[in-house]
């Protein structure tokens, strides 16, 4: 098994005029949890589908598990597991029947299947629910079942496309425990998500926006190296109004709302703090707190997106 589980070189996918994935390149080391972060429609699912052999790339190459996705897609399928964004198991089959079916689809022998089935049921917490119709399970359980079916055949690489969509936080946490478990066994996990807190659990992240990779690295690297300018967290009344006011100021680089507070990116910390208090005071907006914070991944994300968008606009203006 090569050190690089997944190698991607300039992979692109075009649907008519629309470029869904624009020349992305990256590598995924064996046994790592690799996160693909982006908004809906950024190109995450399309990338995953190409890597799984579900879609043909328009251009570029990729190897998954050592096999080329274009030339040997069927061999790729033997070594990967896949969990799609939309629940794709059979709702009118029971839990046990779904497991049995996919076991058969992967060609597992009866003995192996029994053993794996027990493992999956245990892992997903579905022991005792084998006879339940899949349709009757709540979302959290369905996701765990889907994960279980994806790893029935003990693949080396697992692709999870937004696996925790629509799931409550407790279930999400549990799900990530499962992912960690897989990773500890040496399985490479490729996961896409738009939840930034989940990105923190990954070893390696790529930020994707409008089909292009705009940033990459470990969470720690991203948080410390991307944003140079200090970020101030401002707690004030009339947050929205405050943001509108500050946005217009030339010394404000970026603003965004986080919950009930405002994140303001400025050139200098001390200067920025003074200016904020001053400006908002002139509007009669009371400020309760101004603190410098370490940028969160969300800050990084937004910063990078805006940067990318501005670059795109400039490019268009030039052409």
């Amino acid at each position, binding site marked *: 098994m090569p050190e690089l589980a997944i190698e991607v070189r300039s992979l692109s996918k075009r649907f008519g005029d629309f470029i869904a994935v624009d020349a992305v390149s990256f590598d995924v080391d064996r046994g790592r949890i690799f996160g693909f972060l982006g908004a809906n429609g950024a190109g995450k699912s399309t990338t995953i589908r190409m890597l799984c052999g579900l879609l043909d790339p328009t251009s570029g190459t990729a190897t998954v598990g050592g096999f080329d996705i274009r030339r040997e897609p069927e061999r790729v399928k033997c070594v990967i597991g896949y969990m799609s964004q939309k629940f794709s198991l059979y709702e009118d089959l029971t839990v046990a029947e779904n497991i049995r079916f996919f076991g058969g689809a992967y060609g597992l022998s009866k003995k192996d299947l029994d053993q794996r089935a027990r493992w999956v049921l245990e892992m997903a917490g579905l022991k005792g*629910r084998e006879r*339940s119709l899949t*349709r*009757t*399970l*709540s979302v*959290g*359980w369905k996701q765990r079942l889907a994960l279980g079916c994806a790893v029935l055949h003990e693949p080396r690489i697992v692709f999870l496309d937004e696996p925790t969509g629509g799931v*409550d936080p*407790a*279930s999400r946490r549990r799900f990530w425990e499962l992912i960690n478990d897989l990773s500890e066994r040496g399985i490479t996990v490729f996961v896409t998500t738009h939840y930034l807190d989940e990105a923190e659990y990954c070893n390696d992240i790529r930020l994707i926006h409008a089909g292009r990779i705009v940033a990459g690295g470990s969470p720690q690297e991203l948080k410390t190296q991307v944003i140079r300018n200090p970020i101030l967290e401002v707690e004030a009344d009339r947050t929205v109004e405050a943001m509108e006011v500050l946005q217009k100021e030339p010394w404000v680089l970026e603003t965004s709302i986080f919950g009930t507070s405002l994140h303001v990116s400025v050139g200098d910390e001390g200067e920025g703090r003074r200016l904020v208090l001053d400006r908002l005071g002139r509007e009669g907006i009371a400020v309760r707190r101004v603190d410098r914070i370490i940028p969160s991944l969300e800050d990084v994300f937004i910063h990078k997106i805006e940067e990318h968008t501005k670059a795109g606009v400039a490019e268009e203006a030039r052409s």
Partner: protein
Amino acid sequence: MKPFPLCCVRAVIVKEFRQIRRDALSLMFLVFLPGFMLLLFGYALNFDIKHIPLAVVDEDGSRASRDLVDKFRTTEYFDLKAVLPKTAAIDPILAREDVRAALVIPAQFADDLTAGRSPSVQVIVDGSNAMSGTTAAGYVGAILQSYSQRITLRGLARRGFTDVALPLATEVRVWYNPELRSAKFLVPGLMAFILMVIVTVSTAFSVVREKERGTMDQIRVSSIRPMELILGKIIPYVAISLGSAHLVLLLGEVLFGVGIRGSYPLLLLAMVLFVTGALGQGLLISTITRTQQVAFLLAVLTTMLPTFILSGFVFPLRNMPPVVQAVTYLVPGRYFLAALRAIILKGAGLGAIWNQLLFLAVFAVLSIGTSAVRLGKGEKERPRRRRRGGA
């Protein structure tokens, strides 16, 4: 409390129209397929039975027998496919449906004729295809009869009786369809058949699709009443189906010369009632099935064969056994076709078809009413699926 009973219908209508517009394919199907089918089948099909493939065994080989064979060769009612040496050869080609009738002229044919005896010719007819079977026998009879008459008259003429006239002249008048062009018979039947199938299939998955996708919950949660939902769903489809029906009428007139002799408003009324009933049937199917697959099967099974066979399109209703005739009362195509024929071909007025219209109205009301009831009842089915797994 709702402002007035049917206020929300408009909202549903607007939504359905929007959905329909976005689903261009379905729209194309509903609007153009009926016209296309009429085009196709109007040209392909006819009720005239001609060119019946025929085989002849001429055991006589005389000039008289060859003369007779010629009569069968030149008529358009038969297609002389094979002249066989002996009768044993008939079986296999009849079994293969290469021919559907066979003529056997016996060896003494010419002798019998000259001797003044009446010879017999054997006509073998394939009964398994009952439609052409009876007709073929009839044609043969007619051809032989005219042949006999000619021989007789020729014989008389040779003896100098040249002024023997045919004693009987039969004047045949066919009303409403003077040239007995089967297009005038075919087109109304096709129209009823095609519209019934396509309209019912179009609506058969309207509700089921929402059930399958889960958007049904959204609708149940709103304050829309079942009848409003149904009217809202049906009205756009009625409008579109009427458009389609008019296209079919137009094609029927332009391409096949089947024009409207009677009152157009009456025809419109019949069409509205019929289309509404068909939509109601589709909707009803939609409410009693859980998957689109079953809805489709049911829609197809309850419209295709029944309408084709039990509406009076091809097989005359009059001849069916009483039990079957009773069942035809359940086939809306039957009433529509009767009304269509009366209006289009006979120019009949309300007096002639009021009962057909009544039945159509009853059918429409029943199908839509039952759908509404079932939609309302659907509320009670929900609790069963609430067995949550818990988080």
